């Protein structure tokens, strides 16, 4: 008796956070800031063998206003860094960032006058992928880690 018998199994009781995060994590729209060789491996992850569409992230967005995940794939030079910072600021909240490869994480093989030794000095990075270039499975693993981060997010706490 009671309201449960009237409603049967048509109602799901949950929190707003859980539903919103569930929707967000399975339809991330990545924006590839692909500069060098890691961009080619990122393209391999999108192609048919290591399909990123299985994880819901195959819709690439080249416009930062429509993206929520920025993947910096490749080395970032001093001429390109202001561009990366500006584009990061243009992405609306909530947003996450993946530093793909050794060069984006820490400068990689190249310790020269013109390469930024790790973009995390200037923009907040959530997941780093090691490798030069990382295998597509590594990129998918990073995507799953981002999905776990999205799961723990809350619409109240974000500024």
């Amino acid at each position, binding site marked *: 008796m009671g309201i449960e018998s009237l409603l049967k199994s048509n109602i799901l009781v949950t929190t707003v956070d859980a539903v919103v995060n569930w929707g967000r994590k399975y339809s991330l729209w990545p924006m590839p800031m692909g*500069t060098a*060789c890691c*961009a080619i*491996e990122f393209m391999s992850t999108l192609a048919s063998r290591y399909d990123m569409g299985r994880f819901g992230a195959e819709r690439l967005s080249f416009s930062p206003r429509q993206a929520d995940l920025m993947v910096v794939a490749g080395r970032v030079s001093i001429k390109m860094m202001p561009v990366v910072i500006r584009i990061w600021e243009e992405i609306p909240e909530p947003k996450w960032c993946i530093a793909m490869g050794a060069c984006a994480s820490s400068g990689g*093989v190249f310790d020269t006058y013109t390469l930024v030794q790790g973009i995390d000095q200037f923009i907040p990075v959530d997941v780093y992928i090691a490798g030069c*270039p990382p295998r597509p499975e590594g990129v998918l693993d990073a995507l799953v880690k981002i999905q776990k981060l999205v799961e723990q997010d809350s619409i109240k706490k974000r500024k």
Partner: protein
Amino acid sequence: MEEKDLDLQTEILVLNFGPQHPSTHGTLRIVMELSGEVAVKATPVIGYLHTGFEKLSEHLDYNQFICVTDRMNYLSPLNNNIGFAIAVEKLLGIEVPKRAQYIRVIMAELSRISDHLLSIGAQALDLGAFTVFLYFYEEREKLYDLFEWATGSRLTTTYTRIGGLMRDLPEGFEDAVKKFCKGLPKVIKEVEILLNRNKIWLGRTRDIGVVSGEDAVNYGLTGPCLRAANVEWDIRKMEPYSSYDEFEFDIPVGENGDVYDRYLVRMEEMRQSMRIIEQAVENLPEGPVDIDNPKVRIPKKDDVYNTMEGMIHHFEIFMKNRGFIPPVGEVYSSTEVPNGELGFFIVSDGGRCPYRVRIRPPSLVNYQVFPMMMEGRMLSDAVAILESLNIIAGELDR
């Protein structure tokens, strides 16, 4: 009723194309001055991927620099490795054994196929034909499997060493290559059926981005961009290196020098590459892959572990601040990579690191033609022309 002539005030619009843009070719930026849809002037701005390879070369020894050459034209890294190894071997005045030369030819041609597959795939993707990208990408994945089997890495292979190769081909590699060469022509044929007489493709690529043969030579173009403009020139035929004169192949040449001809030249070059690979695999000689000079290339592991001289030679070549010592002199050596002529100008002062390495990038010289091709064309032709020149930012900016 009289019609007044409206005095419309028009202005040139300056539009920034890049460096972050949907076209797949990396950090390229073009400042376009548009009058309506027509580009009055297009000025490329480059340098967004400048890494300082040439400065870095003065601090790395010759074998270490090979891993940096991978990152130049990252669509076909084996060609860069082979180009640099040939340049340093010219400086040292040594010649690698026949087996190593044939294996280098096989790897270079497989890598050329890989580059053209992605170049045409990306070109088709940007002009709207997504299917071609996926079809060619699956073939590229098969190539990546082969590369990983032989060299250990999909993309940054670092396969050659000065005086030979990293290691010999594994068992069964030749059969796998033959199997790949049987499967690829069918895919190329399918894509030709999709594209060659497609009205949209012809409309977007015919008579776009035309460069005449004379202009092409004056600008310094090389590779498919030059051959499509009806100039028959290929370093593999004119100045053969690494036993290319023992193989039979043709050089495809276009007629008009437009985007469509560059596409046709690349498709045909893939077929010719397969011809070379089949001949190389048939006639692959037996023997060592490294030269027998322990001052340049490490001796066999047997000797390294069991003899004093073997161990000393191994350390002399590989330890930090060690390395082999070349003679004093300067050489320039060029090879035919998928984009054109890749040249290395090495100045040696007799030390373990080069004094200066200059990389002559085909992409930089090919890109100079772009403003001339773009004048008077519409904005959407910019994408077609840019893709057909196959500019790789890693090589352009170094």
